[in-house]
């Protein structure tokens, strides 16, 4: 939230936030929270009162989960309200009542009442927590009234524990409170509450009876009351600020702050994170939680990783941005991140280690402070937690193999032997070099401890064997102390350097592997041209990289269909239902998440900014890996890649369809133009002739009327043929040409086509040459007759009246070859291919009219027979058209 100090206009961020909130508000239901500071202040009662008011105002109110705990006054208020039956879930043989989400969604009232926002659902319910149920109902556009106590809020959890001494386990993320439309504080003075308690009007679960005694002390109640008042005030303040911001009302805005806190998996992290949240609230700042994964941390045992996971999720739920970084030095990585992301304050914890350890190994806090430069560093004291817990960060020590110690002994022995050989010729200082060499070798090849052992042994050996007095451990010349120290420190330094370098190399290698796997995946995806190849590439790459089994599900109507799946992986209906939920709610679900965590796979929605494409289901080998930041990061990257590839294929298909559509439209337009012209032209003559004949005033003699009638007749025939061509063309284009193949006599075929053009053939010389013994050929008689008719018609039209036309037919081993030859003008060479295009007409000769469709129809029919047709010019002039049909 920032407002530029200069102008009076609201900043774009503020406007965007407001617009988004408004948009969300229109689709989402409104949440009204009835907030109290303890059980028994009357939240449920107040909620019911408000609900009844709404009902009387005419709104549709339904009580989905309201606990009256037997209190008569509450029950009285429930009367008259529609009550949704609760779902009964079985847990360890007992039936427990839970909120029935689906019933509420199906009923779709305007307002629904749900008590106890912080409640944890029974194992096996769709969501872990009731607040998640409420979110789902809000997303469906239904308003919700709910009740919650202030101590359930995540950010206040540790303070409350401090105040009351009782840890509250059921928590609600603060984001819910932030997004609530209305917060009503239900407040009564603590004395009144205590009185109610004495009167037995406050419901307490039996087990917690004595704890409740501890809880309901006046001091606690007062503190809690103050907490709830403060929190509500903060919420109101927020509302006011948003209001002022969107209307550009200037106010005393603080400078934009940005906070950073580190999660390390230590038990302090949680406290640090909550503290940072409170600080961020006070400063009205954004904040980031960062987890630096060094290679040594990566080798940690499972509990630590779980804790890190938990801390990061906690930070997210409290409203932080979360980032995970791989690096070798924590302090450096933190500072680098802070500088790059404009962090103004870093929050660190004050560790309580002993002085000596601090000297030898400066704690990270000090490193950070030293490197922080212009960034403020807040050091938060973490007391109350026992020191022992610090050591709970168990580093799985990589056991140093025992033979490494042996190797160091060997090295020292070898150095001693060598030095012994050289002793007569060199002064002792030079022998130091040999030991130095041994130490260096040990440092490079062995781990730290063996290297240090080598140094120590080397020093001792050197002292014993070569420093006067020999064969003793005493030293005469104190200068050798420096030698010893030097040898020792060289050993340590080199060894440490080597270890660091190795660690760095390992981190880099791991990163390289990740990048490589991503690279291979994106390369394969880029090459994929259809969904099938995308699926195959995904399954192959991800299963290899993560050693996992995958399934990709795509929505199909109302359900999710399995588009691709690893071998041997089977999804039953329950799994499909989880996948369906994940898709519909656009959220992760399944094992490792808080929703439907009892599923077998983890389901991640595949989406781009524009649309949701489907769901990726992942089954990892180790359950623990589901919560490993490393794996999740990789999965997220994969999901992005897959979504992009799917979108690309989808868009490509759309583009292709658009092209086809356009081509069709072009053709249709040409057709329309042709029709318009070629239909009207014959009609001109026909109508002209008939109107002349009808007109009694025109005196038309018999010859002339005969002429008119003949002309009209010819034109009518032409029109008929044109209509026929059009119909053929339309059928060809629509792909509706059905070929009825039957064995046909080629001579018969030619005879039919000649018969069809009988009139036009008068006076023309057409000869037929068939080879002897032509077999019967399988073809569609009617369509092929049409082909020959069109070819013959063309030949008649374009060749002079006195020229010869020939029809030839023969067969070879594979084809029937029919040729139509004329002595017309032929076709220009470059047009020989185009002559079969639709609407192509020869520019010459004049006076010849045709639709330009005839030859393209021939081509369509011949090709539908799997045959070929081509046009060639004849030597000596004229055109030869050859049709080949497979036998």
């Amino acid at each position, binding site marked *: 939230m920032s407002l530029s100090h200069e102008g009076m206009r609201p900043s774009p961020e503020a406007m965007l936030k407001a617009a988004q909130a408004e948009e969300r508000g229109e689709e989402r239901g409104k949440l009204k929270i009835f907030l109290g500071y303890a059980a028994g202040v009357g939240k449920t009662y107040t909620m019911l009162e408000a609900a009844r008011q709404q009902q009387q105002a005419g709104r549709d109110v339904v009580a989905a989960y309201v606990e009256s705990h037997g209190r008569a006054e509450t029950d009285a208020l429930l009367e008259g309200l529609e009550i949704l039956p609760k779902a009964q879930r079985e847990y360890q043989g007992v039936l427990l009542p839970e909120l029935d989400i689906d019933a509420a969604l199906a009923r779709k009232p305007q307002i629904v009442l749900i008590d106890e926002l912080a409640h944890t659902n029974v194992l096996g319910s769709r969501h872990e927590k009731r607040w998640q149920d409420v979110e789902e109902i809000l997303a469906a556009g239904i308003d919700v009234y709910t009740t919650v106590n202030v101590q359930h809020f995540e950010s206040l959890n540790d303070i409350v524990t401090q105040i009351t001494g009782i840890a509250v386990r059921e928590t609600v993320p603060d984001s819910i409170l932030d997004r609530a439309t209305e917060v009503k504080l239900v407040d009564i003075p603590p004395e009144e509450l205590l009185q109610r308690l004495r009167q037995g009007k406050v419901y307490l679960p039996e087990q917690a009876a004595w704890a409740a005694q501890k809880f309901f002390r006046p001091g606690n109640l007062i503190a809690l009351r103050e907490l709830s008042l403060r929190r509500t005030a903060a919420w109101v303040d927020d509302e006011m600020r948003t209001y002022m911001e969107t209307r550009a009302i200037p106010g005393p805005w603080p400078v934009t702050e940005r906070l950073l806190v580190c999660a390390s998996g230590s038990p302090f992290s949680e406290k640090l994170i909550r503290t940072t949240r409170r600080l961020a609230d006070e400063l009205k700042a954004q904040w980031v939680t960062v987890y630096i994964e060094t290679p040594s941390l990566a080798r940690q045992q499972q509990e630590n990783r779980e804790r890190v996971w938990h801390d990061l999720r906690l930070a997210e739920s409290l409203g932080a941005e979360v980032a995970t970084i791989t690096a070798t030095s924590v302090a450096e990585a933190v500072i680098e991140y802070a500088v790059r992301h404009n962090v103004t304050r870093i929050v660190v914890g004050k560790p309580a280690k002993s002085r000596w350890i601090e000297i030898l190994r400066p704690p990270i806090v000090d490193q950070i402070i030293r490197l922080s430069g212009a960034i403020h560093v807040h050091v938060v004291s973490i007391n109350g937690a026992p020191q022992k817990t610090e050591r709970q960060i168990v580093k799985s020590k990589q056991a140093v193999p025992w033979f490494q110690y042996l190797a160091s002994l060997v090295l020292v022995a070898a150095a001693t032997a060598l030095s012994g050989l050289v002793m007569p010729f060199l002064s002792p200082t030079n022998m130091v070099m040999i030991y130095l060499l041994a130490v260096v070798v040990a440092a490079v090849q062995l781990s730290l401890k063996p290297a240090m052992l080598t140094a120590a042994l080397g020093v001792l050996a050197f002292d014993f064997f070569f420093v006067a007095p020999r064969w003793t451990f005493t030293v005469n010349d104190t200068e050798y102390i420096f030698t010893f120290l030097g040898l020792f420190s060289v050993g340590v330094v080199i060894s440490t350097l080597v270890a660091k370098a190795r660690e760095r190399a390992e981190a880099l290698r791991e990163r390289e592997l990740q990048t490589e796997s991503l690279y291979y995946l994106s390369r394969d995806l880029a090459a994929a041209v259809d969904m099938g190849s995308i699926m195959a590439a995904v399954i192959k790459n991800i299963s290899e990289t993560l050693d996992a089994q995958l399934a990709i599900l795509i929505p199909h109507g109302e359900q999710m269909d399995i588009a691709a799946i690893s071998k041997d992986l089977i999804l039953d209906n329950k799994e499909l239902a989880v996948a369906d939920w994940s898709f519909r709610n656009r959220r992760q679900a399944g094992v490792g998440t808080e929703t439907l965590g009892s599923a077998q796979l983890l389901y991640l929605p595949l989406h781009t900014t524009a649309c949701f494409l489907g769901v990726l289901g992942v089954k990892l080998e180790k359950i623990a890996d589901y919560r490993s930041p490393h794996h999740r990061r990789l999965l997220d990257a994969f999901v992005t890649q897959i979504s992009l590839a799917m979108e690309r294929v989808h868009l490509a298909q759309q583009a292709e369809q658009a092209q086809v559509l356009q081509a069709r439209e072009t053709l249709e337009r040409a057709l329309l133009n042709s029709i318009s012209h070629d239909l009207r032209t014959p009609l001109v003559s026909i109508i002209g002739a008939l109107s002349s004949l009808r007109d009694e005033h025109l005196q038309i003699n018999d010859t002339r009327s005969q002429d008119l009638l003949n002309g009209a007749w010819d034109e009518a025939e032409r029109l008929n043929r044109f209509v026929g061509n059009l119909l053929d063309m339309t059928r060809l284009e629509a792909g509706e040409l059905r070929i009825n193949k039957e064995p046909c006599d080629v001579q*018969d075929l030619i005879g039919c086509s000649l*018969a069809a053009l009988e009139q036009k053939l008068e006076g023309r010389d057409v000869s037929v040459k068939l080879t002897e013994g032509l077999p*019967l050929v399988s073809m569609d008689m*009617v369509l092929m007759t049409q082909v020959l008719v069109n070819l013959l018609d063309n030949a008649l039209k374009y060749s002079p009246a006195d020229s010869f036309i020939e029809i030839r037919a023969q067969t070879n081993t594979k084809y029937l070859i029919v040729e139509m030859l004329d002595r017309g003008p032929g076709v220009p060479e470059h047009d020989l291919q185009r002559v079969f295009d639709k609407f192509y007409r020869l520019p010459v000769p004049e006076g010849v009219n045709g639709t330009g469709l005839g030859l393209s129809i021939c081509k369509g029919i011949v090709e539908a027979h799997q045959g070929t047709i081509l046009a060639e010019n004849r030597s000596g002039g004229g055109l030869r058209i050859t049709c080949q049909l497979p036998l």
Partner: protein
Amino acid sequence: MTKETNLPRILIVDDEPAIQRFLKTALANGEFALFQAENGHAALSAAVTTKPDVILLDLGLPDLDGVEVIKRIRQWSQVPIIVLSVRDREADKVHALDAGADDYLTKPFGVGELLARIRVMLRRSLQQTPEPIFRIDELEVDLARRLVLLRNETVALTPTEYELLRLLVANAGKVMTHRQILKQIWGAVYLEQPHVLRVNISNLRHKLEKDASRPRYILTESGVGYRFRSEF
């Protein structure tokens, strides 16, 4: 519509008024008594009441399928039926012919074709005994003595070819579908072997026609069957 007893009676069944008008005009030359029906059901009752000698039946009727009308009429009458159909619907024509129609005309058709077909139908329905000798142009077929003469010279035909010729000649002027020919000459088993028919037709043409590529006697009706010419 006058009911003059001696004139041959033609029932025209078509739902298009324009076509009705054309047919009426074309046939109103005093040779025929004309009756009209506009749809299938009207046609069925008209067939009963007017007792026509030839029915011109359009296949594209609004209420009943033309083939259905044919089937129903055929249940009690053998009156010649000529169907009017459009181009490219060969399957419909074959279907109608196999259901009992006798011939067809493809729209648009000329009056000459129409009259020729009608005349063929009337001749067949009116004559009681078939003529023993069939003559057309240069061809003479003596059905009693099983003799075929072309330009007064005997033509040698195989028994199958002769049977084929006999069938065609007996139905001269009328179209016969492939199925009908195959069934009558070769029997139902050969219905799936049309090439038998083709080969025989080809042989016949070679023997009887001057130019087998331009047959004048045995005409091919593409996609439907064959027709032996009855007049020139």
